[in-house]
């Protein structure tokens, strides 16, 4: 008996099924070949267009200089470590603050009206103002107040500004997540005697957070890039290092090095987001 003709459970496959599976395999093989071929042709076309551009020689000298790349890389990497630190400190702060703001907006008791109004105002303002502007205002405005205890270190100010800006987005993501939980869940929790807070804590939030993990990760990716914006208030991070190098040596290759580092950091996060989304889709389908 030829291989592949026995199904699970020892059932012998019919000739029709064997033929059907052979066709499916052939089709899958053909799809794979078409995908590979079209990718190669596409890449070759892009390279051909770029390399044959009239200014290519000058661009290559300015952006693709291996010697400049090797020379600048250690400094750019050192700067990039600052970006990573800013991200690692800002991200948990944003998650906590965003969740708190979302929860405050869900409070219904009249006592909390001022808090609720404040939360609404905060989200309206910081979602509207461009992140770069928030960084400039916080970076130059806060220390100028000369208040006791206000930090004047640029990295701290950068973290504060990014947290202020991103918390507004993340709060809205959490709120959307809370809205996706079916009202029947809350009704069931309350009918069992759980209070509003308990229903939120044990029933609504766990489901809401699960629902918003992919959009949250998307915001993380965005935050990773936006750490470069703090270069504007004098933080020597990857982009700034590249800039310093580029303006002293008249070579832009360090920008490419910085770009490469950011991409290397965001790609794993992006793939992880895809993986989680696919897993959720699979579970829903199951």
């Amino acid at each position, binding site marked *: 008996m030829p291989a592949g003709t026995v199904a699970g459970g020892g059932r012998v496959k019919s000739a029709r099924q064997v033929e059907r599976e052979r066709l499916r395999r052939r089709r899958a093989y053909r799809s794979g070949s078409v995908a590979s071929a079209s990718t190669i042709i596409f890449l070759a076309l892009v390279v051909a267009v770029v390399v044959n551009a009239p200014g290519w020689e000058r661009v290559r000298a300015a952006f693709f200089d291996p010697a400049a790349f090797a020379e600048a890389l250690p400094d750019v990497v050192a700067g990039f470590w600052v970006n990573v630190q800013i991200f690692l400190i800002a991200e948990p702060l944003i998650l906590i603050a965003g969740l708190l703001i979302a929860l405050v907006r869900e409070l219904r008791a009249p006592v909390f009206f001022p808090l609720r109004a404040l939360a609404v105002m905060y989200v309206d303002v910081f979602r509207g103002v461009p992140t770069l502007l928030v960084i400039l205002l916080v970076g130059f405005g806060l220390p100028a107040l000369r208040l006791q205890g206000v930090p004047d270190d640029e990295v701290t100010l950068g973290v504060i500004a990014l947290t202020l800006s991103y918390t507004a987005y993340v709060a809205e993501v959490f709120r959307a997540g809370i809205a996706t939980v*079916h009202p*029947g*869940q809350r*009704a*069931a*929790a*309350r*009918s*069992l*005697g*759980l*209070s509003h807070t*308990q229903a939120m804590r*044990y*029933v609504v939030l*766990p*489901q809401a957070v*699960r629902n918003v993990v992919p959009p949250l990760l998307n915001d993380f990716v965005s935050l990773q890039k936006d750490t470069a914006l703090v270069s504007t208030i004098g933080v020597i991070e990857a982009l700034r290092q590249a800039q310093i190098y580029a303006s002293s040596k008249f070579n832009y290759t360090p920008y490419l090095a910085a770009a490469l580092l950011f991409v290397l950091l965001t790609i794993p996060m992006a793939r992880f987001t895809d993986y989680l989304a696919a897993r959720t889709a699979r579970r829903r389908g*199951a």
Partner: protein
Amino acid sequence: MTLLRIENLWKDYHGHSVLRGVDLAVAPHEVVCLIGASGSGKSTLLRCVNLLETVDDGAIFLDEEEITSPRADADAVRKRIGMVFQSYNLFPHMTVLDNICLAPVKAHGVPRGRAEEEARELLTRFGLADKAGAYPDRLSGGQQQRVAIIRALATRPRLMLLDEVTSALDPALVAEVLGVIRELREGGMTMILATHEMGFAREIADTVCFLDEGVLRERGTPEQIFTEPRHERTRAFLSTVIASRRL
């Protein structure tokens, strides 16, 4: 002695009255079935009793205490009432055991160990002992609804409200849920059921109430309601039910 007393209850939605002056008294251990067409106010009445809706006039008394008073502690009232929904509403992120133990532990202060022990006893009693560690989406509709009933039962309620608990189930699974309700009755549980299962209402109810456009048109023993309905609207409703072979 009445356990629950509803007096002249009104409920409005968007300027339209869904309940129009309902009066009802339920004695301890009594089983009341609410019958009537969809939209007649059966579910709304149950939701009002559990304070999931605010009433627009009238009053509800539980153990002679007015629970519809704004001064009443809604959480404390709900702790004395168990409710089961048409769509089960199990918590999908928790196992069956956690679904059942959540309210006893968090709302009633029962120690975790004892709550689990009691939950397992209930699961065994209703033939679901092997499902304790399963998540709701791994259960059939009938199993989910039995878990939902156990979950409500685990808080030791004085009164159970069952809102069309078999309406989302296919006929083969209805029987297992009805079996659980039958057992609750034998245990002396006071219950109000909104139901479309007329045969079951006839079998299990002490009192059948016919709701029609938010008005309680007629109440009586199952025998009286199903064999000699007095109100013309009751007769019309029952004849449509018979025509659709639900009785």
